[in-house]
């Protein structure tokens, strides 16, 4: 079960609305390396993990990613607050206004809708944790690109917060991978789930 807390993990402020940057940062909402994909990837991979530590870590990081998704949603909301159809058009995001008005939608920076193809679950802890580590790196780099694309110090501040969370998650997944490899090594030669006998 999940409980909703009526608070963001970290404050989200903008100096002024900026539809052009909303168009870009929405990729961390519904893009290939965004927070929706991250949370679903980790929460879905829990069931085939062989250790309690790995299940706990995926549960907790998956839950934190949901909070990051909400921060990005709040950012897009604030960046487009009060924007007119002409503002959307001027920012090259007229299609967003036509289809969604001020509503949010899961797309990347090029308008491509979110897809389950962005995430994987092989049911193999080594493959899945390695995928998770790569996902954290890709999200980190995307945040670096986004930080370069805005001059708003408030926006930079919250993006830096999310950026450093990717660094921490990568570290924890790496420790978890080491732990799993040790766990597997003790019990059997590790060459895949189905080749145990």
């Amino acid at each position, binding site marked *: 079960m999940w409980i909703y807390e*009526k608070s963001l993990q970290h404050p989200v402020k903008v100096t002024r609305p900026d539809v052009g940057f909303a168009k870009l940062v929405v990729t961390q909402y519904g893009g290939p390396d965004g927070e929706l994909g991250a949370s679903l990837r980790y929460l879905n991979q829990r069931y085939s993990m062989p250790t309690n530590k790995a299940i706990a870590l995926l549960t907790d990081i998956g839950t934190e990613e949901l909070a990051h998704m909400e921060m990005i949603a709040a950012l897009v909301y604030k960046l487009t607050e009060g924007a007119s159809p002409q503002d959307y058009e001027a920012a090259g995001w007229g299609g967003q206004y036509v289809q969604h008005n001020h509503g949010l939608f899961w797309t990347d920076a090029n308008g491509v809708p979110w897809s389950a193809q962005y995430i994987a679950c092989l049911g193999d802890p080594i493959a899945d944790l390695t995928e998770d580590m790569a996902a954290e790196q890709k999200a980190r780099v995307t945040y670096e690109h986004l930080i370069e694309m805005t001059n708003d110090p408030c926006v930079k501040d919250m993006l830096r917060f999310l950026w450093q969370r990717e660094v921490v998650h990568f570290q924890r997944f790496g420790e978890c991978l080491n732990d799993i490899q040790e766990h597997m090594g003790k019990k059997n030669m590790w060459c895949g789930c189905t080749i145990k006998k």
Partner: protein
Amino acid sequence: MNCEKQRSMLKKIQEIQFVAVELNLYLDTHPCDADAINDFNCAVQILEKRKQAYQDEFGPLLNFGFGGYSKEPWQWVESPWPWEI
């Protein structure tokens, strides 16, 4: 509604909650670190106090009964949403 006070009380919750999140993830991969468990428990103690004080003034922070009692009218729909603060 005293928005400035609400924002500042919420910020204090966010700060200590971040300490708890960070220690929680660390402990997931270092479950035998007694010092970190002690730090985590200290953070939880402070967090509970700050949440209680906030909820007494502004209503439940969590839904489904996890945020404590409600005054009348139903406070959950009254207080601002995170993206509105």
